[in-house]
């Protein structure tokens, strides 16, 4: 029998700080096993990846470039999570958002200057992405269809829609590849090395571009929105307790639709980095699974903008380091990174509560008390 004074609740720093690290370590440990299975040295792989991601300026540029995508899609997943919604449609929302940007760029890149056109593209992309998120949100709030299923469906519908448009409508005349013509310079976001050059700093060329700053601004803005604005307060109330929301007079259905707009809009911002920042044209499957990676990023970052920025850096490094690794280790390809990502989602998300009792047990042994783990929910 454990008496009351010999039991303590699991402290917050343990739950928020240590447990996620334990989860991540488990994911990385299993990843190491995969390296070992295919006959590569995991330790060596880690060394190469770190060098490949941070070892020289260009590498850092690429890492930041990938991280920018993940910040956007991670934030998109997080904002929905806070309202109790699971948006796995980031991929489709980003895709349609890219369309919104490309349409503006194609229409106005010969008439508008860059300082008007880029914001116009941004707004247009955000509206397109928001609309693509709002429909599943509306269907969940007012028609009772499950948002997970509808957002999956919307990913496929977006893919078919863009496929059609790129193959049959927007394709550049005379081109074989399903992509639009290249935009003029007025529709491009400057690269980081260009921006640095304005200040007389010389950087290596890399695809990292001004979108990174927009991503960081979005992260900060979202933090303000969720934790400092009245709407964010309503959003979190709905996410934690719909009954409390109805007690306080908050319309949970409206919040659901607005949140999905916001989420879709944020996912769409990925197009800034990919379409306006580097590719300068709309092309097939430019989203390349980044929308799904956003889920891993958000889970790892515990749905907090700061955590998401850090997790994005980690995933950016994984992508870039993984790409570099492919040169040095013949058996390793970019898909290795996808597998690692799956493991991170598994251990940080699905099995998130698995390690809590273990951590509590170890902690209890250390302090000589019985540690109670608060149940999920």
């Amino acid at each position: 029998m454990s008496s009351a004074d010999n039991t303590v609740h699991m402290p917050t720093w343990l739950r928020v700080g240590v447990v996620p690290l334990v989860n991540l370590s488990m994911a990385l440990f299993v990843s190491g096993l995969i390296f070992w299975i295919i006959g590569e040295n995991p330790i060596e792989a880690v060394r190469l990846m770190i060098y490949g991601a941070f070892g020289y300026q260009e590498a850092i540029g690429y890492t930041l470039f990938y991280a920018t995508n993940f910040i956007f899609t991670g934030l998109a997943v997080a904002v929905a999570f806070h309202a109790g919604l699971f948006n796995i449609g980031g991929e489709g929302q980003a895709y349609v958002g890219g369309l919104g940007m490309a349409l503006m760029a194609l229409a106005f890149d010969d008439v508008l200057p860059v300082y008007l056109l880029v914001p116009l593209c941004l707004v247009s992309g955000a509206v397109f992405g928001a609309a693509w998120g709002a429909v599943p949100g509306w269907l969940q709030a007012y028609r009772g269809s499950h948002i997970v299923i509808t957002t999956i469906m919307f990913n496929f519908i977006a893919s078919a829609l863009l496929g059609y448009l790129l193959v049959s409508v927007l394709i550049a005349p005379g081109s074989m590849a399903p992509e639009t013509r290249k935009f003029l310079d007025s529709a491009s976001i400057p690269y980081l090395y260009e921006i640095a050059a304005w200040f007389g700093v010389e950087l290596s060329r890399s695809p990292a571009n001004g979108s990174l700053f927009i991503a960081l601004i979005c992260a900060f803005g979202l933090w303000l929105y969720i934790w400092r604005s009245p709407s964010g307060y309503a959003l979190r109330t709905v996410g934690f307790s719909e009954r409390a929301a109805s007690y306080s007079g908050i319309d949970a259905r409206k919040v659901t639709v607005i949140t999905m707009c916001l989420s879709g809009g944020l996912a769409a911002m990925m197009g800034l980095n990919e379409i306006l920042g580097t590719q300068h044209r709309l092309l097939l499957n430019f989203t390349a699974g980044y929308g799904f990676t956003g889920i891993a990023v958000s889970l790892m970052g515990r749905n907090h903008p700061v955590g998401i920025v850090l997790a994005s850096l980690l995933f950016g490094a994984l992508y870039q380091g993984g790409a570099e690794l492919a040169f040095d280790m013949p058996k390793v390809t970019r898909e290795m990174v996808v597998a690692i990502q799956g493991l991170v989602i598994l251990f940080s998300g699905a099995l998130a509560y698995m390690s809590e009792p273990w951590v509590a047990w170890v902690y209890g042994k250390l302090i000589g008390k019985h540690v109670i783990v608060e149940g999920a929910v």
Partner: protein
Amino acid sequence: MPQAPVIDLAIELRGVHKRFGDVHANRDVDLQIRKGSIHGIIGENGAGKSTLMSILYGFYKADAGEVLIDGQVVRLANSRAAIEAGIGMVHQHFMLVDTFSVLENVMLGAEQGMALAPSAAAAREQLQHLADNYQLNVDPDALVGELPVGEQQRTEILKALYRGARVLILDEPTGVLTPQEADQLFRILRALREQGVTILLITHKLREVMDVTDSVSVMRLGEMVAHRETAETSERELAELMVGGSVDLELNKSLPNTGEVLLEVKNLGVRDARGVQVCRQISFNIRAGEIVGVAGVSGNGQSELLEVLAGIEPLSAGSFNVLGQEVDSKYKINPKTLRSLGVNHVPEDRHRLGMVKPFSAAETSILGYHDDPVYRRGPLIDGDKVTAHCQALMNDFDVRPPDPSLRSAAFSGGNQQKLIIAREIEREPKLMLVGQPTRGVDIGAIALIHRRLLALRDAGVGILLVSVELDEILALSDRILVMCGGELVGEVPAGDADKAQLGLMMANAREVENV
């Protein structure tokens, strides 16, 4: 103390203990039940009856103590063990699959082989047999979700009997039934007793106990406080045993100084999400400067009434007029609008309505007021102002620990409730709707909350107080409304109220005239 040992006990419990976290749900419970009798267990909500029965049914495991069935000590590790020991249970919330037919529900878990068809044929025959013996008529092919509750309950009884139950536990079986359905149930129970089935009836309705049981045990605050032969006791004695000795609350209550009518409720009717009528034909009013208490056993419509008046749920019939604003079935008023009118609400379920557990105390302190410009700086919420506001509330109501950054869930029940009441009182309401203000609250906090509510009333605020604690109703109210079965069954001025009489009114409307 238990009565002298009786031969032929169907069930015996010895020293049963059960704790949930810090709550002692059952404390050293002894119980003996004669074979072939109907035994009642009564007690107020939260007295520990349901927990005790769940232990007997193997759903929870007791921390200590033993269970004897037919004189043998048994280990009830799970429901299957209890079923095999011959125990059947009809839960308060039916354990039925709505999309299944009666037959399928009855078979579930008691099928005879891998293929369903032979089991179904056998079950059908057995059902017919049971129907003939016990007047338990239910169409075996009807979808359970489409049956009236009375027949759903019969399906539950059939389920238990089909599994060969010799002891049948019914947990608050009449809570959802009409009086006619209840009478029919009692006929069935008597028929079962004739066949040698032992019946345990969990209830808080005295009339049922007097009507149908042979013996009765009373529980209070997790303990077994008395055992009586039904023939040798009275409703009055049981009511007193159930509510216990009255707690003297030293409140200096002045005479009410009532003013204008703030709330007028006219023939209000409410249906719940399933379409069941939970309130009907309710009319009353509240004036400025008085506390109107609504007494009633929980589950008799008072919670729904409160939520409708607070704008959370819509009403289905009638109307109410609150501070000049007319609300009827066509117009559901928003809680925000009500707050701006000066109607504030301390909800019954503070964990799910009154606060958001993961929020900090500061955040909970603005629940319902998060878009009030008072807390703004530009378009954003000013955290410093919210914290200062929460700190002020905490100081005023002696909330401990006085730390606005602490998670709401980390406070004790009493301190959570003080914070919620502080939040609502601070807005200077004209009308307060208060539900279960002291449920799960420690003695010290109760006194403080009561004093503040009285001060509010003396300042001219009208208060509607819904509580299942009779002591609280008696201590605070100027007028007492009694609810039973979704109806107002009587109004008593506070000065004339007597606890046993109120208890009887709460237990059943028709009994009142006989007192």
